[in-house]
């Protein structure tokens, strides 16, 4: 765009050869250069009004730019309330059987406007599908490795060693083109997760191979507007030292552009999971409201009434909140660096 402004190597050498006039030639070229010394800036110092933030109004990507969700094949707003209960049937002993098929794939995802991330995924999305069941169900998860790399599905929960989805135990690593059905009982109830467990482990996780695994208690929790938030990072440089982007549910800043719509006074239940790699802890902070916190969701009584929780990698918990006032309430990591690098969003509370 500024091609004419750049002094070419030829101009440079010719100018230098004449010394006495060299300075004059170079200097004159610079004076004629409209981009020199900020001449082109006057009067246009304002950056256009952002959709959110910018400057003192907070962090933002290039104003007005969002990722192409259609090309990505998933939408974080939909992932929020997308619970996959599987194909349900009844076993001979009368208890429910849930079956899923989960595909490992390699695909480029536009994780920030204009930034492509060569991800390894479950079902071509970050995070992978939210698998949901009830305590005591028999679960059959057929894992098909369509990726070019070896993977597994390692579930958190209580199960036999051969269903643990780690190398050298049971079936071990599932090679490209192979498949395996992980079969185990759903226990204990609570909020869990699954992820690939193939080495190098940090990279397999950081590339996007994780998802939420919810085991409902035998008796339903109180009715609520339920949603999943998976906190994670994107180490786009693959240097294994921190992340360039932080997000919930795949795309940084997404809920700044599309605030999460909730209703005033209604119980909102957030299944909050932290699978952040390369940073030791993550946190969740909600503005203007307090929530009950159920660590790991394995007890029906909250441990805390708070507006901020921290989670180490693999930790998770359920947040229950009622918004008494309408309006926009920010939520973000209270590790502010993560928020500034994408892990922030809005709830939009409306009446009715």
């Amino acid at each position, binding site marked *: *765009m*500024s*091609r004419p*402004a*750049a*002094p070419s*190597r030829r101009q*440079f050498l010719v100018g*230098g*050869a*004449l*010394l*006495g006039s*060299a*300075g*004059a030639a*170079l*200097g*004159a*070229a*610079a*004076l004629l250069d409209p*981009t*020199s*010394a*900020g*001449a*082109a*800036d006057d009067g246009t*110092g304002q*950056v*256009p009004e*952002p959709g959110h*933030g*910018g*400057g*003192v109004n907070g*962090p*933002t*990507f*290039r*104003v007005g730019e969002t990722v192409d969700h259609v090309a990505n094949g998933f939408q974080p707003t939909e992932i929020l309330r997308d619970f996959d209960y599987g194909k349900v049937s009844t076993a001979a002993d009368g208890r429910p059987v849930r079956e899923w098929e989960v595909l490992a794939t390699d695909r480029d995802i536009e994780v*920030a*406007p*204009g*930034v*492509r*991330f060569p991800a390894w995924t479950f079902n071509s999305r970050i995070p992978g599908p939210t698998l949901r069941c009830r305590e005591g169900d028999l679960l059959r998860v057929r894992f098909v490795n369509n990726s070019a790399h070896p993977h597994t599905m390692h579930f958190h929960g209580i199960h036999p060693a051969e269903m643990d989805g780690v190398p050298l135990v049971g079936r071990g690593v599932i090679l490209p083109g192979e498949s395996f059905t992980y079969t185990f009982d759903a226990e204990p109830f609570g909020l869990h997760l699954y992820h690939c467990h193939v080495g190098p482990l940090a990279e397999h996780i950081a590339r996007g191979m994780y998802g939420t695994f919810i085991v409902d208690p035998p008796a339903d929790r109180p009715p609520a507007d339920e949603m999943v938030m998976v906190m994670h990072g*994107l180490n*786009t*440089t*693959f240097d294994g030292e921190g992340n*360039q982007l932080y997000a919930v549910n795949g795309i*940084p*800043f997404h809920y700044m552009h599309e605030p999460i719509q909730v209703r005033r006074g209604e119980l909102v239940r957030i299944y909050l999971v932290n699978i952040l790699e390369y940073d030791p802890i993550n946190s969740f902070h909600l503005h203007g409201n307090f929530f009950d916190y159920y660590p790991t969701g394995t007890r029906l009584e909250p441990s805390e009434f708070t507006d901020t929780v921290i989670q180490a990698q693999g930790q998770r918990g359920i947040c229950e909140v009622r918004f008494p006032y309408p309006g926009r309430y920010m939520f973000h990591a209270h590790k502010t*660096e993560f928020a*500034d*690098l*994408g892990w922030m969003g809005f709830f939009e509370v409306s009446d009715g």
Partner: protein
Amino acid sequence: MSTDAELCAPAVDRPAAPTRLPVWALSIVAVLVAAAALIGLAVLGGQSLPERNGPPVEELAVERTVLRPQVIELTVRNTGPDAVQIAQVFVNDAFVGVSGGTQPIGRLDTATLRLDYPWQDGQPYLVSMLTSTGVVVEHEIPAAVLTPSPSSVLGLMALLGTYVGIIPVALGMFVLPLLRRVSPTVVRVLLALTVGLLGYLALDGGLEALELGGASSGAYGGPALVLLGSALAFLALTLVDRLLRGRRQRAASAGASGLRLAMMIAIGIGLHNLGEGLAIGSAYAVGELALGAFLVIGFALHNTTEGIAIVAPLAEDRPSLVQLGGLGLIAGAPAIAGAMLGAAVNSSELSAFLLGVGVGAIAQVIVQIAPALRGRAGQLLNPTAIGGITAGVLIMYVTGLLVAA
């Protein structure tokens, strides 16, 4: 020399073959053959080699950083082989609104990014440019300082140029009456002192230039650019010196006045001062204010002696004040132009080059002055000269300590 004669003899003796092509035709054939071979190599040879094995090589160099209230503006050059698309930018680990640079930047092309960021005076910032492939290119701003507007800089540079060019030269010219009375030894001490000052300046400017060149992208040569600038400046000023000497000798034999000789010296010194002005202006442009002030003091001290040099041939004349003023302007005014141009050319590579030019110019003037240091025994490094040079170096070192803070 006999070897040369032997080698040349057979060629001379050999009778010219009537069928031989003329030299120009042979040249054309040679060029055509080379061109055809190169084209063939480009078309066929290129295909016979595989594409580079690996991801795109993304290299960016920030050539200019302009800080205005709430805005950081970077001029970025692609110094790598592949096009680079800057997708997003974060400053001190916070993504910022960016305008500009929305298209991929081709090799050696530039783009200007404007970051919407409430930077604070004096604070360090790390600007990280996230490319379309997820690569991060970092640019450090050691201390954020408001970039002065171009018009105010030019005014300031005019002032600086006046300080280092016109005023000291004029001051030096005022010693004309004194110069007529002191002994030649005193003059030699003064000139040796000048050599010391200049030597220190050359070293200091050279180190600075190499540092700037090393920090620049290297797309145009980096440190090699400094040496190029020095060498070209040295050679060009030497050429000017030779031309002036030739004219001076002819003028002297034609019985020209001392005024004309002084004029020629003033022109030579003026050219030299252009380089000095460029060095000052470019030092200022890249935010090296301490160096700029250092140079001002150093150059002012040194340029006073230039004034002495100009008036030296006028010992026997009685030039008018207007004539003396004109000489001072010719010698000093280029410092103003140089400073303004140097400040306008605000890129670390060009600044490194121009600082190199200054080093070359300084070295050349040292060479010019050196013969005048010879004592009665004809030695260059006689006790008088050594004393003067040492004093000059120490003066620069001490003034440097005082000024560079």
